[in-house]
């Protein structure tokens, strides 16, 4: 690094971009980890059904499998849009 580089404006380093991207993708992949193979498809089909009635985004349906003392719990989370957005539909 020479003396001139101190005078230039700092831009975000590529390493910090890498870190941010990794944190997001790893968190996403962990949420579906260990679940059955049909989960992604189940999620897609549920999204299509919900969209028949309510306009929701890609991330609106969240499917997760949790294990508790020998029993599996399928957790479904559907985030509906705000009232205003619904009225326009």
């Amino acid at each position, binding site marked *: 690094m020479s003396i001139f580089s101190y005078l230039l404006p700092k831009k975000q*380093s590529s*390493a910090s971009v*890498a*870190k941010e991207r990794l944190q997001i993708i790893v968190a996403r992949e962990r949420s579906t980890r260990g679940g059955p193979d049909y989960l992604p498809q189940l999620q897609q089909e549920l999204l299509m059904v919900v969209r028949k009635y309510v306009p929701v985004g890609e991330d609106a349906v969240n499917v997760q499998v949790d294990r508790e003392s020998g029993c599996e719990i399928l957790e479904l989370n559907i985030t509906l849009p705000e009232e205003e957005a619904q009225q326009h539909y």
Partner: protein
Amino acid sequence: MTKIVVVTSGKGGVGKTTTSAALATGLALRGFKTTVIDFDVGLRNLDLIMGCERRVVYDLVNVISGDANIKQALIKDKKVDNLFILPASQTRDKDALTTEGVEGVLNALRDDMKMDYIICDSPAGIEKGALMAAYFADEAVVVTNPEVSSVRDSDRIIGILASKTRHAEQGEGDIPARLLLTRYSPERVESGQMLSVEDVQEILAIELLGVIPESQAVLNASNSGSPVILDIDSDAGQAYSDAVARFLGDQLPHRFVNVNKKGLFGRLFGG
């Protein structure tokens, strides 16, 4: 008691075989009877890194299929006492690796050959060979480069280790998995071009076993077929020695993670 250790990573080319060779050699140097097994059926390479490629007669698949016994197949290292190599086969038949077959080989190494450590050098990917290398492990070393695809694949492998080992299936919980960060370049980390140890650790959230600097010594070692840990003057060799000591429970500070500080002159005019 025999300990089975899997060296794994998900991604290829990050240093699994280099690490397996170094770890096994390091353990043998400390007096532990150690076998290192190449699980990369079809793409055998551990023999080259260990420098015993011309002495391979039988391999892992021969032992599993009963064509040879474990004593015939084990190659005794010429440089280091207590060190043995079990090469992979060059045939492409990956189905040869069965759970029962691998268990039989590991049992023979434990009961008949009285090994202290068995190092399983996993192939890349998450297919049969990789799953078999990990299945019977008591401990894992996850080899990762400070680079996005390697870190992501390592996270994937850590997830697989948590569910697809015998210990996990028997409800005995996760096996301990530790991170070995290889090809690390403190200079590039400082200039913001490379993920730092702390970054990778924060994402993967597992204990750090060691940091191996990017080093010419690694290529020199593989060129000559002598594990880099035997190159005691090299940075990578010393870093692997430290990692082996930590593996055995020593508390050592991490070396080779910071840039050697330049003087004022160097900072003003250096590249």
